[in-house]
């Protein structure tokens, strides 16, 4: 009986794994397939990866992706951290209201956020392009930062900030010297999370980008609509790997951090 239960458990986990990872695995395998065929394996190759790095348009989109992810997550980290500090000082009710408002872009379906941003840009005659995508990414990244920073701020004893001032530090230097080091792990997690979300985004980018501007995900989408392009499998594989590595990094940070907190 116990054995059967164990088997069932294993079977279930395996099934979950297959459902979750089979598509990605297929993608990865195909990205190394020598022929363009999606049906048959004709040998291992790196040529699609090589082709990828010779394609100007793809390199441009890769560049866009990285710049947008980096700049948007940096700006979002700055705004989100400042917002967290302000929210931490608020009374309970206003804070909860603020929290609700900032969470909307995160909880909303991407398509709703994407379309609303698109409409906003059209309404305000804001030419869609690189800047509009950047603004959109900053918008949806801010809540992730707040979500990581605010709990750290709440943990930080208010007296620590006051103790620094008591010992002669100005409010700004007190913040820099004792509060910032305390909440820095949260800020870093927030930044990494925002960066990942930005890398990962397709829908919102799709609705807010102009004609000439592409990130990797929108590039893959347009290319695949034109026909079979194994380079795109390679590109998707790379993106998957990048996001996976980032997420593992974030989780490891969280885990080691929780350890130091609960030591």
């Amino acid at each position: 009986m116990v054995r059967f239960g164990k088997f069932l458990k294993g079977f279930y986990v395996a099934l979950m794994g297959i459902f979750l990872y089979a598509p990605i695995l297929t993608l990865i395998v195909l990205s190394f397939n020598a022929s363009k065929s999606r049906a048959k394996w004709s040998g291992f190759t790196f040529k699609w990866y090589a082709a990828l790095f010779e394609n100007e348009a793809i390199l441009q989109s890769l560049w866009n992706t990285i710049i947008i992810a980096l700049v948007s997550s940096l700006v979002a980290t700055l705004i989100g951290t400042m917002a967290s500090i302000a929210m931490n000082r608020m009374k309970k009710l206003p804070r909860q209201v603020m929290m609700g408002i900032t969470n909307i872009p995160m909880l909303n379906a991407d398509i709703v956020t994407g379309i609303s941003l698109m409409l906003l840009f059209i309404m305000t005659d804001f030419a869609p392009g690189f800047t509009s995508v950047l603004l959109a990414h900053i918008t949806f990244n801010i809540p992730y930062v707040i979500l990581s920073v605010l709990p750290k701020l709440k943990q930080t004893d208010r007296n620590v900030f006051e103790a620094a001032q008591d010992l002669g530090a100005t409010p700004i230097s007190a913040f820099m010297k004792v509060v910032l080091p305390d909440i820095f792990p949260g800020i870093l997690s927030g930044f990494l999370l925002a960066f990942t979300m930005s890398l990962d985004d397709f829908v919102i980018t799709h609705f807010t980008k102009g004609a000439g501007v592409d990130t990797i995900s929108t590039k893959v989408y347009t290319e695949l609509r034109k026909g079979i392009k194994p380079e795109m499998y390679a590109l998707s594989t790379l993106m998957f790997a990048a996001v996976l590595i980032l997420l593992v990094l974030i989780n490891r940070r969280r885990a080691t951090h929780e350890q130091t907190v609960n030591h």
Partner: protein
Amino acid sequence: MSDKLIDLINISKSYDGQVVLDEMDLYIRDNEFLTLLGPSGCGKTTTLRIIGGFETPDTGKVIFQGKDITNLPPNQRDLNTVFQKYALFTHMTVEENIAFGLRIKKKSRQYIKDKIDYALKLVNLDGYGKRSVDSLSGGQQQRIAIARAIVNEPKLLLLDEPLGALDLKLRQDMQYELIRLKNELGITFIYVTHDQEEALTMSDTIVVMNQGYIQQIGSPEAIYNEPKNAFVADFIGESNIIDGIMIEDKLVRILGAKFPCVDTGFGTNRPVDVVIRPEDVELVAPEAGTIAGTVTSLIFKGVHYEMDVMANGYEWLVHSTKMFPVGEAVGIHVDPFNIQIMNKPESEDEEAVTIDE
């Protein structure tokens, strides 16, 4: 001992319309150990925070060495605070914590090093400089918080229930060490506690507070032996607080019996509160006492026996080294000198009203 180091004049503070401090006047002399004592929420921390510069009073002034510092930010005040929860900088070592204030004041490396060594010796934590703050016990962290404050050589040290988180033994050790520190350094201490025993052992002056009002200011002896009202009497130690009528000078009626006392000036036939400490109640033979009653409970407390005696409808708390078993008929005698007469508050509200010095 006569200079006023700090003078609080007419300080009021409310939060969201709720009055926390009401027109408080208080001064602290140079080199005094002054304790703010009172129940939770009575405004002790708020008073300290106003002195420290973390809150601005709604009305009134804070005068420090003759200068109005009411609006001076905390970092420009020549005083330091030891916070209730230590508030150590956890990402720094013990040394870095202690050096924090000195580095801001741009002291020389050698000066800082000497100060750290000196402070660590002073709090009996020699050799702990390189340790991380997290690796210390509560009592050690507490001592680091004190060391961090005193290396700055403040004129005034504010301590907010600094021993609150420690166990009894450690508390007593630290009480002793704090007094030693104070005598060694000659710093003025304002100390907050809600532990009356701690206040009685450590202070030169005790300020008893309730609901934002000062109830009584005085030496530990004065506060204990001559509480000004029922609140102070009740808060400081255990007491029998009984309704009485002041028949005339030096004679009070309690529970239907006439007790001679030493107080005068209350008028005739005035209702008063009568305070009698449990150790001042003498149990004698039934016919020898002023009133007679029966022992209803008996607990051995080590130094003395604690007994309840029901007499004329009031349960008297009695501490005595002599033991009277439960059920025994006894007489109650109180030395006139040990009967403390207090004016009754006019109404419930006035129970909290200031009694002018």
